């Protein structure tokens, strides 16, 4: 399974990664400061209470994790603070051996107690602490029998435990400091990562410097890093002006063209799939969207394959896929996908069929509103494109683009006809990816409001199926079912385009912008 995923990741990036192979062979040089841009700023510094890359990019270098995803071989999980681990035969107990001699930035030693305190904070947050992914880890119990051992016991069977523990948001905090003040991570940064915190100038910069006591000998290579907080439109000018050399979330094709035109021979470009997609959510509590035929017809009217070609030139929307990221091991193969409503490559036939369905349902002049956020990329192109596609089967759609806060409120209240939602997570695991497809009972973001418990059942079943082949089968069945019922239908998946100055080495692109950002292996060839 690993190898197939790997191949797709590498295949999609290899074409542009000409220098990477050589870079791997080079001995990393020490020194220098990495300057990069981040297009949003974290509200506070607490990893456990955050969901945004705006926190991960500045803060990941300051903290260590128990285990982490490998940047080179995503989705392989590799040691971080854990040296090694064993899994019991029934897969209900995970025992981690913790490195010795790891120090926090204040010089105090890091032991299994700190990891236990961290996970206790995530699973059972004390009063006043926000732990967003609490429910995800609800089945885990943490123990620290001795200073170099951490044991995770499962209350119920759970697939993907290692991947869940590799979350970039599970920063390991100091138990002693948490005891003093469980909310210290919101305002202070004290971790054991490769870089120590220097300063954060609000609205403008963030600085970190090398932590000499870092547990990986010889790392990090950089003396430090400096982040420039800029608006999305400020990235290209910033790189062109030489103010900073990279941005690690992802840029759009027009920005790629601009940078390539100006600094072709000084630029490294990575391209590949991104674990993010945009989807249409039909409000099944409203007529006519309670009718599966109508939902299917509206999905069938959208030319995904044609849209992929065109939209990928002007936006980050690119890949045609179902609920799982195209190319991921558990996703439906293309041959099966094209059989589902809305994924046919013969768009004219699809449209005819869609028209017929609507006509039969007496909805020839269907009119509705499409609720969307007023964020230009990629929400506006997705909205504009969908509306144009629906117009071609005679459906009139009004675009309601609201500020995020108003959008969120309307979606949560169920006050919409059809909405443009997105799915984004740090990994491909189906337990994360399916959250918006469930009923409201099981998931607070099951915005479509359907009451089809069959999806919930399959979801719970796959979560508890620890055999990969078996799980894949259930997941594919669930994906087929979800796309046929069409409560939510993906529009397109995103393309991740990362560009940086050639002198930056040792950074690897994964399909998630949350991963591989601790910068421990990054160095400057100058």
């Amino acid at each position, binding site marked *: 399974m690993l190898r197939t995923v790997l191949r797709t990741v590498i295949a999609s990036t290899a074409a542009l990664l000409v220098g990477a192979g050589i870079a791997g062979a080079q001995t990393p040089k020490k020194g220098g400061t990495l300057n990069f841009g981040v297009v949003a700023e974290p509200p506070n510094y607490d990893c456990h209470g955050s969901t945004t890359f705006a926190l991960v990019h500045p803060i990941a270098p300051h903290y260590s994790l128990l285990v982490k995803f490998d940047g080179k071989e995503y989705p392989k999980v590799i040691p971080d603070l854990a040296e090694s681990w064993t899994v019991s035969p029934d897969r209900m107990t995970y025992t981690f051996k913790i490195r010795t001699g790891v120090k926090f930035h204040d010089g105090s030693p890091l032991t299994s107690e700190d990891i236990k305190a961290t996970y206790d904070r995530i699973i059972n947050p004390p009063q006043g602490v926000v732990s967003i992914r609490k429910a995800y880890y609800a089945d885990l119990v943490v123990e620290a029998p001795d200073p170099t051992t951490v044991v995770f016991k499962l209350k119920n069977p759970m697939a993907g435990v290692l991947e869940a523990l590799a979350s970039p948001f599970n920063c390991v905090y100091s138990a002693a400091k948490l005891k003093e003040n469980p909310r210290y991570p919101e305002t202070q940064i004290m971790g054991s990562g490769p870089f120590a915190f220097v300063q954060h100038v609000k609205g403008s910069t963030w600085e970190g410097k090398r932590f000499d006591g870092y547990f990986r000998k010889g790392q990090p290579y950089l003396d430090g890093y400096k982040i420039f907080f800029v608006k999305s439109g400020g990235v290209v000018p910033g790189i062109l002006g030489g103010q900073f050399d990279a941005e690690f979330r992802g840029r759009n094709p027009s920005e790629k063209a601009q940078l390539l035109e100006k600094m072709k021979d000084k630029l490294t470009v990575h391209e590949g799939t991104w674990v993010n997609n945009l989807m249409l959510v039909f409000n099944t509590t409203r007529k006519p969207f309670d009718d599966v035929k109508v939902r299917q017809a509206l999905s069938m009217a959208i030319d995904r394959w044609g849209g992929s070609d*065109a939209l990928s030139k002007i936006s980050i929307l690119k890949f045609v896929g179902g609920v799982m990221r195209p190319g991921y091991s558990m996703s439906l193969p293309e041959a099966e996908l094209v059989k589902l409503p809305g994924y046919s490559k013969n768009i004219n036939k699809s449209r005819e069929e869609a028209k017929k369905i609507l006509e039969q349902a007496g909805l020839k002049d269907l009119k509705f509103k499409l609720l969307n956020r007023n964020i*230009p990329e990629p929400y506006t192109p997705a909205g*504009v494109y969908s*509306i144009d596609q629906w117009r071609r089967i005679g459906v009139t759609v009004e675009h309601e683009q609201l500020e995020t806060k108003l959008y969120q409120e309307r979606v949560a209240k169920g006050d919409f006809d059809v909405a443009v939602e997105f799915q984004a997570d740090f990994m491909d695991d189906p337990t994360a990816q399916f959250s918006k497809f469930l009923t409201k009972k099981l998931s607070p973001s099951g915005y479509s409001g359907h009451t089809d418990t069959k999806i919930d059942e399959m979801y719970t079943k796959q979560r508890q199926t620890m055999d990969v082949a078996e799980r894949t089968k259930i997941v594919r069945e669930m994906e087929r079912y979800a796309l046929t019922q069409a409560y939510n239908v993906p529009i397109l998946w995103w393309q991740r385009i990362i560009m940086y100055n050639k002198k930056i080495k040792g950074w690897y692109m994964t399909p998630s912008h949350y991963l591989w950002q601790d910068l421990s292996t990054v160095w400057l060839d100058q």
Partner: protein
Amino acid sequence: MATVATTPSADALPKRANPLWQFIKVQPLGVFGLLIILLYVVCALGAKWIAPYDPEAIDFAAMLAKPGEEHLFGTDQYGRDVFSRIVYGARTALAVGILSSMFGCTLGALLGAASGYFGGRIDNAIQRVVDIMLSFPIIVLAMVVVAVLGKRAALGIDWNLIAAIALPIIPKMARVARSSTLSIVAMPFIDAARAAGFSHKRIILRHILPNIVAPYLIMVTAFMAQAILLEASLSFLGLGVTEPTPAWGLMLSGTSADFYQTAPWMILFPGAAITLAVFAFNLFGDSLRDWLDPKLKS
């Protein structure tokens, strides 16, 4: 305000054989402005016939085409014809500009007239509210109102957007209308009318309102220019009109910002359309003021 109006007395309103001809002779620049406005009006009303393409139709084959024979002003990233979008955009601009200016000025004039005519406590209360409203810079007030009201579209127009733009106009018009009213109330014929036992309604309708028509007209035209500019700013910030509706400010915002360095025509023409429209309204408004306001006439 650049257009601080002083009050003409009732008999100072121009009485000429043919006022239109006079206006043309005395204010050629104003006529020029008026002609441009008429051009926009024609665009707005006749958009269907003038625009060569459907302004919302996506044509990826023509994506980011340069200005030329096919597309006079080029196309945007969706391959939509920029010229057609500008022509249709005149509808949005004029509708929002004219409606919000008229609503704002009418409400303001009524408030100001009431304030000036009744005086005393009513005047005091209204003036305090006006003071508070005047303490907000226009865009700040408009942004807060947009955020509070959200969007409410009917007849293809976002009425809450109009309310947001009209609101900051009210206190400014109220100020002007109040001072005009005060100077009229001080005139002997009002006292006479009161003594004769005429109702408030009759006095206001017969004597006060006709006398604030001139400042009203001046303010309405002046604020049309500002309203168009404000709508463009709000749309630029993503708070006004939404895609795919063609609107000038919107054409300069959002993802267009990613493309304008490589496809400058995407922003050159819509920006010029805004500038020309505001320019025309200002020119016309200035001339109208000079013409209606005898004190400023040299």
